[in-house]
Structures are given as C-alpha cells and as structure tokens.
C-alpha cells in the first residue's frame, strides 16, 4: 500500500504535510469519490492537522477553467466535468425516469418553500399530492424528511437533499434560480387562506363551497 516513493512524506509521522501536499491529497481523495465529500470526511482521511478548507480553496482555483471542475454541493465537494463539455459525454448519459408534471412541481415547491409540509404543498398546488409523488422524489434521493413542524399534529416537513443540489449543480439551497426575486415578490410567503381560518384543508368550514364545487364538476 504505502510505497512512498521518495516523496519524502510519511503518513505515519505526526508532521503536518505542507500545503501543496495537502492539496494533492484532497485532490486524490475527491477524484476517487463519485459522491460529494464533506470537509470533515476529507479531513478524516488525511493526516491529522491538515487545513482542508484551505486546500479545497486552492484546488478550486487550480481547476478553474479546466475540463473538470471542483464543484461545491451544499457542505460537500466533488469533481464534475465542466458543463460546457457535456456534449462530449453523450455516451455516459444516464437515462433517468421522466418525472411527471406533478413530481416536478412538487420538487420545486419543496426546494423553494422548504421545510414544507405535505398540507402546504397541497395548498400551493391547489390539488392533493399523491403519496407516490413524494415517494418517488424521496426514492430518487432528491427529497428527504425534515424536522417535524412544531404545530398541532406535528406534521412532517420535507426538504431537498444534497443529491438534489448535486444533480442540478447548485452550490447550496440559497442558490436556487430566482429565489431572491420570488421572495421579494412575496411569492414564497405562506399567506393564510382567508376563509376557514388557517386550516389548510378547505373542505371543512365553508360548506357552500363544497357544494358549489361538486355541482360544477
């Protein structure tokens, strides 16, 4: 394993490797991994005392403009091919299941409104969310369960995952396209429905409406 060919660095010794050596190590570790690695995970694999954030920053600069880039994915890092060269990799394209429109909308709602409960998703979409839709997103590794909301019933919330960020090339969930504008326009507010108080399920409360709906459809 350790054929430390004259590199003069010995992993067993306590001395902290020099910065350029640390950068090489982070490079090797990240290159070897398909999935993004967090700074702590990287640090665990390096000799003690390494400044991983510093090495990551240096590495990122080094790969700027190259065919392969160091991408930040939430709190983690991964090498990815440069987006402008995607056309060369047509043979590596991974065929993914096509998402239904319901799934895509639900995904966007989770991403922009997270943490969000199922009732809130339904309120935003105006229709009920089938169990399969959220399941599918969870199964794809794009959505996961967040904390329970501290409201009556303690409903589950949903949030997007690191896999989601990785897939869509987002550095963090603050990086979502148009997030600032949407927020400024108040479109991410959870404005309560004027009728039926704050209840999300509008079936109860006002019965006239239930009838009206039923008749119309």
């Amino acid at each position: 394993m350790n054929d430390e060919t004259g590199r003069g660095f010995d992993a067993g010794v306590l001395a902290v490797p020099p910065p350029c050596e640390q950068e090489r190590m982070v490079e090797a570790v990240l290159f070897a991994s398909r999935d993004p690695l967090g700074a702590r995970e990287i640090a665990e694999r390096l000799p003690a005392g390494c400044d991983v954030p510093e090495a990551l920053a240096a590495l990122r600069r080094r790969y700027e403009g190259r065919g392969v880039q160091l991408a930040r994915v939430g709190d983690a890092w991964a090498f990815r091919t440069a987006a402008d060269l995607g056309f060369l990799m047509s043979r590596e394209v991974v065929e993914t299941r096509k998402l239904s429109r319901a799934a895509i909308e639900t995904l966007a709602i989770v991403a922009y409104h997270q943490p969000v409960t199922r009732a809130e998703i339904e309120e935003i979409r105006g229709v009920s969310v089938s169990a399969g839709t959220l399941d599918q997103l969870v199964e794809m590794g794009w959505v996961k369960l967040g904390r329970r909301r501290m409201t009556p019933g303690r409903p589950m919330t949903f949030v997007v995952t690191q896999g989601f960020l990785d897939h869509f090339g987002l550095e963090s969930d603050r990086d979502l396209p148009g997030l600032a504008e949407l927020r400024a326009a108040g479109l991410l507010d959870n404005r309560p429905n004027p009728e039926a108080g704050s209840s999300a399920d509008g079936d109860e409360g006002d019965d006239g409406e239930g009838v009206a709906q039923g008749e119309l459809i």
Partner: protein
Amino acid sequence: VDLRRISILKLAEQYLGFVEAAKRLRIELAADYLVMAAWLAFLKSRLLLPPDPADEGPSGDEMAAHLAFQLQRLEAMREAAARLLGRDQLGRDVFARGETEAVRRAVKVTFTASLVELMRAYARIKTRDDFTPLHLARGPVLGMEAALERMRGFLGTRLGWQELAAWLPADWLDAPLRRRSATAASFAAALELVKAGSLEIRQEGAFRPIWLRPRGEGEVL
C-alpha cells in the same frame, strides 16, 4: 388576475371546452384545471352577489385576492420548476468520475470471541451426541398412513399386475434403510387396500415377488 373582469360566460365556455379536451389529455392536467375553474366560478358568483352583512366569512374580495395570490404563486413555482429542469443536470450535462477505481474500502475486520463463547462452543460439541431429541432417533420411516394415502392416489392410474417394488415412492429408494421402510409401509398399506376391496394381491411362493392389481379394472375386463 382580476376576477371581476372575468366573464362568467366565457369561463363557462372555456370550462366546457376544456372538459371536452380533458378527455383526450392527461387526467392529472385536467383535474388541476377543473378545480381552478370551479373555484373561479364560485368566486365569481360570490362577487356578483351583494355582500351579506350577516355573513361572517371573508368577503368575496378577500377571497379573490387570495385566489389571485395562489394562482400567481403556483405559476411562479411552475416557472421555477422549468428553470430548475433547464439547469445543467448531473448525468446529462455534467458528469461524475466514471471509474470507481479507487473506492477501495479496506475493511479491516477484527474478530472477537469471549472465553465463555469458546467454552460454550466446546460444550455444544461435547454434548451434541447425547442431547439428540427423541424424534431424531426415529430416523427415516415411511408411515403406513402416508403409504396408504399415496397408493390410493395411484389406484386409478395403474393397469394390470405390477410388482410391489413399482409402487414404492421413488424418493424413498435412495438409501437401503429408507427403501426397507417404504417397502414395509407400502406392503401394509396394500393389505389395507385389499381388505377394502380396491386391490388384489398375489405372490407365487415364499420369497417370490408380490404382485398388485387394482380391483375395479379386473372386474370390468
């Protein structure tokens, strides 16, 4: 969206047209629209009526404002979803390392065992033989009931005289002990069947082969 400017007639026409079209479209798409259209119609009706002072509920204006907000918000989410899907996607535009070459996870396994476990293991070996439960000692024995059951099932399918050996279950012939047991059980079962009148049995002499024939068949002939 200003609801007051929506013509209820136009809405109704659109709505009906949509219901027609929905038959050809994806159900999910239709459902969305139908709910929205129903809402619009309902709200429009509320707006047309003079406000009822006794009604404690929200005014038509408030509800219209909220619906407008909802529509706008949903539209914004649809746009956001489209933008999201328009981004460079992993596995389509951007790629991870293709090879998993270096993912060598050298799992160093250390095994442990306690002295008690070691002794228990030894005790287990040492006591295995005399700790054989009673049913194991019965060994490979085909019960008479089982043989009877089996032979009854065959009665209709066998023609003419056949040796007892041909009536034995094939999976009991592999070991001498099992074969012996199967023979004994089948013979006893054969006697039972003879007694019941559904089988004939004959043997040409002591230690000669035993022949069996289903009874019904012989009579017919």
